[in-house]
């Protein structure tokens, strides 16, 4: 059984990691598309509509991949985690079903209209369609985060007569405090991905001296929104997220920080490699007393280390959890530096000519993807060994009849298929960027002539 459990975990981890590449961009871009459409409406400048169409094409590719890689996530609750679904479906089924009913219909209907119906809808109608796509995708994010938040911090439930977990308060589930902060933190992360991608593409255009009007627009939008998002990522959303972990998942906090022994005035480890066997951090680079301050706002506060908890309560992948957390925080800090600096240069009117800053923006494009992935890994590895924190162990949730051989079969299948999708995705996105926002460059030769004429 141990072996099947590991394969099922890897199965979910692999498919969710690949899936989340797409929604983090589309949720972030949805906001920026509303921004571009608003600019178009207010200035009447056709450039902004072309810019929106350009990003809509990139949005469309990512959205389609997000949908087709998202359905496997919903299915896996039943296929690979049947015992968990049987026990908890009455509670988290609420938020998952609400996501389908309230957000996916909204999002898909208006995306179809947004992509295909610009002429029919008119200027205002097209703005409304963009706004509703944004609303749908952000709602969908909330329902998913609320589902995860309940697994992190279960409330509003009771144990029914047959041992199943029953919902006892709908509003507790929906307005879980954990969900509100985790949502804010997640969405700000998605906005950062959208901003870095937009600013990065803009920087690419400026550095290669093409489509410069669009280059400036993209860099400006990405940097202005991105600087705000980078700061919000740390404070208050990241800070509050950390406090909730400190209050409710104490072994998790200790593992994330690599704190093995309880201490007053605990240091914050910046670098170092956890040695779980010997229960210590190798080669530590630490800021004294900082962890105590960040967690409890007191320099000498007592922070519990892993040794204070029975080993059965420890997350089972401590090094991976520790690195995920540190990668997330490290990158988040870099984002603040890059975005704030870029915003200052923008304010001084020097950004568009500052080649090193444009280079910086361009090479940073992959980093928010890594940071967002590391953030989710921190949340999900940190929840271990629980599937529902304090209620159900991960080992107890797996499908009892799906053996390791079958799980490997489908995992390998997904790996192969997603490798192909990833290659196609990179190819098509690069192509859209290369073609650029001016319809004169459209792919199909004969179309280009016709569109350029009108």
């Amino acid at each position, binding site marked *: 059984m141990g072996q099947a459990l590991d394969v099922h975990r890897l199965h979910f981890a692999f498919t969710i990691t690949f899936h989340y590449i797409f929604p983090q961009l589309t949720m972030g871009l949805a906001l920026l598309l509303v921004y571009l459409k608003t600019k178009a409406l207010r200035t009447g400048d056709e450039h902004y509509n072309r810019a929106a*169409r350009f990003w809509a094409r990139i949005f*469309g590719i990512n959205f389609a*991949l997000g949908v*087709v*890689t*998202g*359905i496997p996530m*919903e*299915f896996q*609750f*039943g*296929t690979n985690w*049947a015992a968990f*679904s*049987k*026990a908890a*479906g*009455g*509670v988290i*089924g*609420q938020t*998952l*079903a*609400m996501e*389908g*009913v309230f957000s*996916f*219909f*909204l999002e*898909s*209907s*208006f995306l*179809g*209209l947004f*992509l*295909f*119906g610009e*002429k029919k809808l008119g200027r205002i109608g097209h703005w409304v369609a963009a706004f509703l796509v944004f609303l749908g995708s952000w709602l969908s994010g909330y329902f998913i985060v609320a589902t995860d938040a309940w697994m992190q911090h279960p409330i509003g439930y009771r144990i*029914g007569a047959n041992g*199943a977990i*029953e*919902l006892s308060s*709908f509003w507790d589930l929906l307005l879980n405090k954990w969900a509100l902060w985790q949502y804010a933190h997640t969405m700000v992360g998605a906005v950062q991905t959208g901003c870095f991608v937009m600013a990065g593409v803009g920087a690419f255009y400026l550095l290669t001296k093409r489509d410069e009007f669009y280059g400036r627009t993209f860099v400006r939008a990405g940097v202005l929104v991105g600087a705000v998002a980078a700061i919000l990522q740390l404070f208050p959303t990241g800070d509050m997220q950390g406090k909730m972990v400190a209050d409710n998942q104490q072994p998790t906090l200790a593992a994330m920080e690599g704190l093995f022994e309880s201490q007053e005035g605990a240091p914050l480890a910046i670098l170092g490699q956890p040695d779980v066997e010997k229960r210590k951090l190798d080669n530590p680079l630490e800021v004294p007393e900082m962890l105590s301050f960040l967690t409890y706002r007191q320099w000498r506060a007592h922070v519990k280390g892993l040794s204070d908890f029975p080993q059965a309560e420890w997350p089972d992948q401590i090094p991976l959890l520790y690195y995920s957390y540190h990668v997330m925080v490290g990158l988040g800090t870099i984002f603040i530096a890059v975005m704030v600096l870029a915003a200052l240069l923008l304010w001084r009117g020097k950004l568009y000519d500052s080649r090193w800053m444009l280079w910086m923006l361009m090479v940073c494009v992959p980093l928010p993807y890594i940071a967002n992935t590391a953030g989710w890994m921190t949340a999900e590895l940190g929840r271990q060994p629980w599937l529902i924190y304090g209620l159900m162990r991960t080992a107890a949730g797996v499908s*009892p*009849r*799906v053996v390791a051989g079958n799980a490997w079969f*489908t995992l390998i*299948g997904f790996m192969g*298929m997603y490798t192909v*999708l990833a290659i*196609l995705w990179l190819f*098509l996105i690069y*192509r859209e960027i290369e073609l650029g926002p001016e319809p004169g460059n*459209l*792919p*199909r*030769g*004969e179309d280009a002539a*016709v*569109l350029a004429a009108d």
Partner: protein
Amino acid sequence: MGTIWFWLVAIMIATYVLLDGFDLGAGAIHLFVAKTDEERRQVLASIGPVWDGNEVWLIAAAGTLYFAFPALYASAFSGFYLPLMIVLWLLILRGASIEFRNHIKSAVWDPLWDFLFCASSLLLAVFFGAALGNVVRGVPLDASGYFFEPLWTNFRLGDDTGILDWYTILVGVLALLALVMHGALWVQMKTSGAVSGRAGRLAGRAWWGVVALTALVMALTFRIQPQVKKNFMTWPIGFVFPLLAVAGIAGVLFELRKGDERKAFLTSCAYLAGMLTSVVFGVYPMVLPARNPLYSLTVTSAKAADYGLKIGLAWWIIGIILAVGYVIYVYRSFAGKVVIEKDSHGYGG
């Protein structure tokens, strides 16, 4: 409460089959009714703005099933592990084919995606049919409430069944033919010229297969699943469902001959709705029949607790009214036959 949700989930699944059914069918006939690039783009444009929304009915129905009948979701999804994973791969291939095709024009790019789109749509129709066949036939559930079926064993009915046996394959073929007809009627209605004509003729030919297989599968089902006979005997009012299917399929031929493309498609919808509701009525109160009736999952044994189901009723009704509103709005916005402009997507923009 269980019975209400049983029917609500059934309605969502039926809506999924009616809507995604036509774009699956359109995919399955794509290579055969559309020959040139412009014709193929007509077929793709006829489903372009809606296929994704149609698929949402599957996601929303699965979500609602998960919330209302968690024990069923757990048991059926883990028991049908392999076919569901294959369905997922086919859905991925299909979505990618529709989205990626028109990005590049090349002698190797288009045919690849056209072929994948057609093959994945075709196989999906067969797999969905076979899945329905499995639910009707019953699965080897035991006292734990779980089962696992391999893809096939010896293709016979009995205690050691696989997903595919001669009965479920038969249902799969019926599903394929029915969706080919349904999709062809859609394509006929939404396109013009040679494509529309070929689709209409194909629908007419598929019709004969649908009629023959429907009669055969109906007769077999009465023998294979005793509950079906019991339900129709106990509540004869239930015969309205198969009658709807019969009226629908008769209507298809009538409207095809008359040349009313819109009504031909609508009667095909009635046929599919009649078939699905007949199944739902036939297996009630079971949601997943077991080979040993003792272990069948029923609306009462598989449902979630009542508090959640009652709350759910409130938001579900609001949500579905909104959803139906959007869907109607989208279909009205793209009403009428598609016009292929020299733009890659068909509707301009």
